[in-house]
């Protein structure tokens, strides 16, 4: 009787797809758009500079954010406050020596660096280390597909076992946890020698880190336990195996009918990806970067797949009931029942709707794990998750401002 008597009966929520096709290579981009927000452009990198794959373009002041590298041979055509554009140039058409040299591979495993030293080396390779966990006792590697619709986890575990193995080894050397446990879907045939494994029911929202930890430990929010996504471990392992700066990301790209897993260059334009997959859009379709429950919608075809993005989907017009204006909450309580954190999205969304952010405080709004189930079940088609995000953002902003000390006048009037 499990599938009956419940609101969520979506077979797509099962995160096991028996996907056996290998991770395909994405298109060779004609143009890439790299996100540079927060990055400092390196000296010598300017408009019309020629770049090679792996040429370092910019660094981030945060020690946990990977450096930015060019993914292709090309010319920088534009640098603005948000993006760096690189247009592809065929290296064979140019005279030798025109392009900067491709960096020599670095064998992170052989170098034997550990801990913070390794973290710095990994940052230089373009990998974000922030998402590789904080210091804790137990670290789970979340090897479930992060969201419904995304299906690269299985091929990654089986066909890219070497990359994952390398990633796990590097993760161990980062020394952020005393023990690392690989959490895989129940029934998975993936084997990694010397690795402790945990088995989790592959049903969304179990792939959300907090819930994955509960599934394995049987305890809600136990202390000294954290989780990292398989996608991040793959990125780490990719840099370790190739020895080159990370300029790719694995995405599941798809529509309701077709999907495929691709390794695409960082900064690939979504328009080029759509052409590559022979998908044509119609008026009213939605393009989304990330997963179907937690991603973001894109307004233009020249947006790009950024580092760390794990999905790119097209939701055709008419596939889901449209959101019509500002529909009021009808108190049906579906979100309350769906919420895995047992908070009250109904009231939270209403508080945010009317700007009463402070009223969210007693409702444990911070527990929200952004799983998107509240909006998924909302029969009034309210943007419940977005309202909660808004409240969190506003309250964080308020708290940040409250911590600042007000500026005293420099020249105090003498009294």
């Amino acid at each position: 009787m499990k599938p009956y008597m419940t609101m969520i009966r979506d077979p797509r929520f099962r995160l096991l797809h028996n996907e056996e096709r290998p991770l395909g290579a994405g298109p060779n981009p004609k143009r890439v758009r790299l996100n540079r927000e927060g990055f400092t452009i390196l000296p010598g990198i300017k408009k019309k500079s020629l770049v090679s794959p792996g040429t370092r373009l910019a660094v981030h002041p945060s020690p946990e954010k990977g450096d930015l590298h060019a993914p292709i041979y090309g010319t920088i055509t534009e640098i603005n406050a948000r993006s760096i554009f690189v247009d592809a140039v065929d290296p064979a058409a140019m005279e030798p020596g025109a392009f900067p040299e491709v960096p020599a591979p670095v064998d992170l495993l052989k170098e034997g660096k550990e801990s913070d030293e390794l973290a710095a080396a990994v940052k230089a390779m373009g990998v974000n280390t922030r998402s590789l966990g904080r210091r804790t006792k137990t670290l789970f590697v979340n090897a479930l597909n992060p969201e419904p619709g995304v299906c690269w986890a299985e091929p990654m575990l089986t066909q890219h076992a070497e990359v994952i193995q390398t990633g796990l080894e590097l993760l161990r050397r980062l020394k952020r946890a005393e023990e690392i446990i690989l959490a895989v879907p129940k029934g998975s045939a993936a084997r990694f020698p010397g690795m402790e494994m945990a088995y989790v029911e592959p049903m969304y929202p179990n792939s959300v880190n907090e819930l994955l930890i509960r599934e394995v430990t049987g305890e809600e929010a136990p202390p000294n336990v954290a989780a990292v996504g398989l996608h991040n471990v793959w990125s780490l392992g990719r840099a370790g195996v190739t020895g080159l700066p990370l300029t790719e990301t694995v995405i599941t790209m798809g529509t309701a009918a077709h999907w495929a897993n691709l390794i695409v260059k960082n900064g690939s334009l979504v328009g080029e990806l759509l052409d590559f997959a022979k998908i044509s859009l119609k008026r009213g379709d939605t393009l989304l970067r990330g997963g179907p429950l937690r991603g973001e919608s894109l307004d233009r075809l020249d947006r790009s797949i950024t580092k760390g993005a794990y999905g790119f989907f097209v939701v055709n017009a008419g596939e889901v009931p449209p959101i019509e204006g500002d529909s009021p909450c009808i108190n049906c309580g579906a979100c309350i029942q769906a919420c895995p954190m047992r908070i009250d999205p109904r009231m939270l969304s209403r508080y945010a709707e009317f700007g009463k952010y402070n009223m969210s405080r007693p409702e444990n709004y911070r527990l929200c794990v952004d799983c998107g189930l509240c909006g998924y079940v909302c029969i009034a088609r309210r943007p419940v998750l977005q309202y909660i995000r808004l409240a969190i953002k506003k309250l964080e902003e308020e708290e940040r401002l409250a911590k600042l000390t007000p500026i005293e006048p420099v020249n105090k009037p003498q009294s």
Partner: protein
Amino acid sequence: MTTPNDTLLAISTPPFWHCGRTVQKNSLHTLLALAPAALLALLQWGIPAMRVMALAVLACLATEALCQTLMKRKLSQSDGTAAVTGLVLAFLLPASAPWQLVLLASVCALGIGRMAFGGYGSNQVNAALVGWALVFVSFPTFMDASSSLLQTSLPDPLFQIKYFGSAAAENFSLLDLLLGKHLGGLGATQSGALLLGGLYLAARGVIRWEIPFSFLLGVVLASTALHLADSALYAGPGVHLAGGSTVLAAFFLATEDSCCPHRRIPMLLYGLLGGALTVLFRAFGMYSDGAPFAVMLINLLAPQFTLVRTPPFGSRHGKKARSWRKKAAPGALKEGGQV
């Protein structure tokens, strides 16, 4: 590019997938679940029943439209919620109800019961019951099925057990009661058909099973307790379950989303109290059928039930942090095999 760059894309917020449920679809499912009872009512009462149902539905739709026009809101008759309220209200009225009565009940249901509170989903008490209660208390003679439907020979089981004691219950077979061969509201008496429809709704997840289940359980527990206390005076659970409007109340009235709690334990308590109150009203109240009043009362108590709060995620820690490894399910952790 195969897609021109000026194609207008829809921007929205996550989640981009949806369960597909909408207010309109839920209303259609509810109407579908009410259909068997409506058909049986037509077979039993003929054109008069059709007249009451049609008038109630149309009057509810018109009242809602009128109120929304006056409130300068978008018309929402297409979502079907007013039609559901109208049909449920008609089910509570006798087939002989004069048109003025039906009209008054419908206008009050939608006008006072719903729109005065701000529209669908804002009312604290089931809208159909507000309309019903108003005419039931104001015009008891028209609402009394046994006095207004003189041409039938059908019995009123709740009336009989109230005034002739438990022995009267033996005059009714459970099958007859389920098939609607007794007096009461024109559709509310179709217990069997309503039960089927209600189970359909619960299976589809349109209503939550906890409420009808605990409501019926409350009826069984309370009537059994009374029956055990004095078996001559109080009838057993059978006639209480199938007679009167118990099934309609359990599946279609108590489950109105905006008037009930939404978490499991509060829902169970809410239903239990409703069921128990139904029997108590029937045994000790002044009216023979207490189910609608019981529902109105638990509707009003719903905010109190909501105070039974479920602790949020992570707040159920033991006093000392125990090692989760001892608690983890056996077999959940394994050493990876050799490749």
